[in-house]
């Protein structure tokens, strides 16, 4: 098996062949037994095996989940090592028939845009499992918890490797169910409401998204499959096919459908209201995964699908995206200032941070998109960490009310310092990962893509810059209230308030290291993403 893997490694997407009439000819390439297939279905296989373990045997369940996620992480490492960083095309590529009637195919492959997010996913899940080792939230049942977590991982990985719109849609939706149950069963007191709201919002978005995908399918030029002309869902072909077939008005509507579909997930300003509830009610691990990976599915959708396929429509929509992004930044920051609950504050800070990412995307330049991807990874690590800390705080203090907390640096100094590092990273301190997500994002709209209104975008830039000041404000305020001062009376001699536990160290340290490493060596990520980003924007003329 190992040898087979090596042979298939880093298979590049072959150039598209065209017949005499200029119609692309689709042929199957690669094999289903592709390293990416292993990566995506390993967690699912592990989950199915876990189902067979008797419920009482908790140790075996946990071990099985950990081994599965570590194996998946191993696959991720393998992909990272085998990946050709100088190449802009899709690697580990496979294209085989799936639903032949509609020419939806099992097309998978990764490039510099998806690799970091894929790596982030396989990186975060084992840490979550380690963190949950002794922290299965009430009402227990670790078997169901870990099975759902692994199914969730399959959905997330699948979304990042799928290069077929229908396949992407399917994985995008697979994520919903486990997350619904994670929030609904293991969440806080308002979990029923929060989980349903999360589910309904996302599903509403995806309903519009699928209509948009299908419209794209019918309006775009056909391809040749087995000698017959048929529409295509292939993301790598659609930029050309759509350019030829989709009219300007139709493109605007289709982009609008995707805009809502992905915008709900990001979440962008008017669609964001599910996020604070979901984050606040979700169990710690759920919040971490939500922040670290799920939100990225939305921004990834813009970068991978909406903009490359419909660049002209993207230009028309860009000011709307920029405006909503900036509203999100300011609104998120103002909401943060009004929060009394630590977890809710972090949730609103997510709205603001994703606003920066969306602002960078709206610039439609390679500089902006690179910044956006960096922002996604940085936000995933930093906010994920903040949610870990919030979870551990909740466990020790049994409350997240900022007014009641205080003196963490005295009672649990290491945790206090970690919180400090993360808040600094979150507010964009140079030298930490957050800076490279935020600063280039703002800078990118100084010079947006050709044809976009310069004055408007520069105004947006200024407002976004003011947003960073707010961010510093609420994060420092949070840190000051939680970590500084003396512990309040009620917690003064509470024996439950301990410093960072060994398992927490294991779960957190890798993330902290990455936050610092990416802060000092941003080139690691920028060099990975750049070739693919440049290629994906080819249709925009640079």
């Amino acid at each position, binding site marked *: 098996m190992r040898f087979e893997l090596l042979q298939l490694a880093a298979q590049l997407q072959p150039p598209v062949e065209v017949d005499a009439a200029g119609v692309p000819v689709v042929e199957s390439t690669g094999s289903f037994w592709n390293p990416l297939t292993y990566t995506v279905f390993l967690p699912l296989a592990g989950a199915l095996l876990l189902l067979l373990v008797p419920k009482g045997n908790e140790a075996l369940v946990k071990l099985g989940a950990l081994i599965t996620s570590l194996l998946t992480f191993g696959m991720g490492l393998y992909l990272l090592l085998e990946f050709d960083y100088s190449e802009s095309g899709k690697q580990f590529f496979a294209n085989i028939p799936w639903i032949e009637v509609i020419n939806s195919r099992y097309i998978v492959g990764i490039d510099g845009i998806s690799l970091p997010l894929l790596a982030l996913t396989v990186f975060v899940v084992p840490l979550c499992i380690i963190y949950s080792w002794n922290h299965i939230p009430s009402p227990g049942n670790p078997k169901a918890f870990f099975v759902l977590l692994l199914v969730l991982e399959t959905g997330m990985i699948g979304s990042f490797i799928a290069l077929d719109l229908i396949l992407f849609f399917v994985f995008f939706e697979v994520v919903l169910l486990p997350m619904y149950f994670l929030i609904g069963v293991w969440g806080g007191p308002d979990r029923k409401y929060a989980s349903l709201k999360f589910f309904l919002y996302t599903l509403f978005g995806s309903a519009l998204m699928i209509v948009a995908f299908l419209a794209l*399918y019918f309006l775009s030029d056909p391809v040749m499959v087995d000698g017959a002309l048929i529409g295509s869902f292939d993301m790598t072909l659609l930029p050309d096919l759509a350019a030829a077939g989709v009219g300007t008005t139709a493109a605007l509507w289709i982009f609008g459908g995707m805009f809502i579909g992905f915008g709900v997930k990001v979440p962008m300003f008017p669609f964001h209201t599910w996020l604070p509830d979901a984050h606040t009610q979700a169990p710690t691990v759920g919040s971490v995964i939500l922040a670290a990976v799920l939100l990225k599915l939305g921004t990834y959708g813009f970068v991978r699908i909406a903009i490359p396929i419909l660049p002209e429509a993207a230009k028309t929509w860009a000011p709307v995206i920029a405006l909503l992004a900036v509203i999100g930044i300011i609104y998120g920051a103002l909401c943060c200032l009004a929060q009394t609950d630590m977890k809710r504050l972090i949730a609103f800070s997510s709205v603001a941070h994703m606003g920066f990412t969306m602002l960078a995307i709206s610039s439609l330049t390679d500089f902006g998109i690179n910044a956006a991807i960096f922002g996604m990874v940085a936000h995933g690590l930093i906010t994920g960490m903040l949610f870990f800390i919030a979870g551990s705080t909740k466990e020790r203090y049994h409350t997240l009310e900022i007014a009641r907390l205080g003196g963490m640096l005295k009672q649990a100094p290491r945790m206090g310092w970690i919180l400090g590092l993360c808040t600094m990273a979150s507010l964009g301190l140079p030298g930490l990962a957050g800076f490279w997500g935020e600063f280039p994002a703002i800078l990118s709209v100084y010079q947006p893509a050709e044809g976009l209104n310069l004055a408007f975008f520069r105004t947006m830039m200024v407002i976004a810059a003011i947003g960073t000041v707010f961010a510093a404000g609420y994060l420092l305020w949070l840190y000051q209230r939680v970590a500084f001062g003396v512990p309040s009376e009620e917690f003064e001699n509470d024996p439950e308030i301990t410093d960072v536990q060994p398992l927490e160290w294991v779960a957190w340290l890798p993330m902290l290291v990455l936050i610092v490493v990416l802060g000092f060596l941003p080139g690691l990520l920028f060099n990975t993403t750049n070739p693919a980003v440049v290629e994906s924007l080819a249709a925009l003329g640079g």
Partner: protein
Amino acid sequence: MTFAASMLASVDHPPIDWHALAPELIVLGVLAIIILVDAFGGEDRKWAISSITSIGLLVAIVPVVTMAVDGAVRSMFDAAYVVDNYALLFKALFLVAGYIVVLLSTNYIAEGDYWEGEYYQLLLASILGMMIMASARDLIGIFVALETISIPAYMLAAWRKRESRSDEAGLKYYLMGVFASGVLLYGMSLLYGLTGSTRLVDIAAAVSGEAPALVIVAIVFTIVGFGFKVSAVPFHTWAPDVYEGAPTPVTAFVAVASKAAGFVALITVVLVAFPTQPEIFEPLIWALAAATMTVGNVIALRQTNMVRLLAYSGVAQAGYMLAPLAIAGHSATSAELATSAIATYLVIYMAMNLGAFGIVIAMARKTGSAELSSYGGMLNYAPALTVAMTIFVFSLAGIPFLAGWYGKLAVVLALVQPGTWFGYSMAIIVGVNSVIALGYYAKIARIMWIDPAPDGDTTRVRVPVSVASALVITAVLTVAIGVYPPLVDQFTGAESFLTLGF
């Protein structure tokens, strides 16, 4: 030519293709056998009836498969009875659905104080009618098939005859059904008079072009008549009461097989006889579909009884299935896409909905109730049933990797294809309704997974082998089709699936 002479001239001996009729004949034979076993077998042989029925249904699938393999279109009786891929798919669907219903019924009927022999006889008669419906391409054939389906179903709905709820269900179903077939028949009589033929292809030829007012009346009456059968709003009012009052296996049968038969008839009539009249049937079906899914979903949200909830969810699902017909008149391609979308949806619907009713039957053995609250805490004492039910409800909701998503995709695909606002608006209505529907499907999941068991009763549920095997079959189908949709659409997407009247 005198009238009498014309009558004589039309009587000759049509050639009969016995292979094509084999599935129907096998079911008929099994029906005869169980009548004999019931009459002469004595009380101690009653148990054999359900086994004979289920084996007979499986045997009847064999000729369906052999015909599917050779793929020829068999047309008999002056093209009034056609066995094409479309007919074969639905015959297989009815036989499989019938088989699963028998599995679900076995313990229910044997343990209750019910008439075992007659139950299976009526069930088989109804299935026979469905199989005829799949092939009928003539008004008379369609009418006879419809009544062969319905009359036994009325009796089955009232099966628990000492219970007033069951009687009530039976009478409501009967009155609505008979009234609908009266309306339908009146439409058919007009159609016959105006076109001079009962064969659908002749009708298609005769009504092409500008339609006189009476043709419009005839088309509307026909669609309304079938609207009752598929429980389209505003003709759905019987469904919840019948579902609740009838024995649950019968409910499953009515909800799945009988509804599918209604759709088969509707597709055949609309697309073979009226495809040239889209400006009449498209707006009508658009309105019916939009109302059906919206009303069904909104009312389902406030149900507290699982069976009634599934009834309204079934109404909404009928709306999704009606939707593609609203654009089917746009072009031959649209009609083909619409037909295969509905067929795909029906196959998937069969698996997931029969499964859901199977869970209701299994759970009722423990709780004796179908109230939603009685499903609380299932995760803790019946994890396998909980996972199965979760699969079924989220498949009904259309969440991927569970078959329902592909049904919805096929529907939306058909709707988007013509590129008209008519289709796009319907696609968006389908999308919005899927979101509304999630409200109650998620509620079911939530009750099973989160809520505590009522009265803290967490004794295990004993599931009879036959019900368990029905659940395994439906759950496996639901997941398998969801992961690999070509399992269905290699049949429904086949070329020349149904010979259309274009």
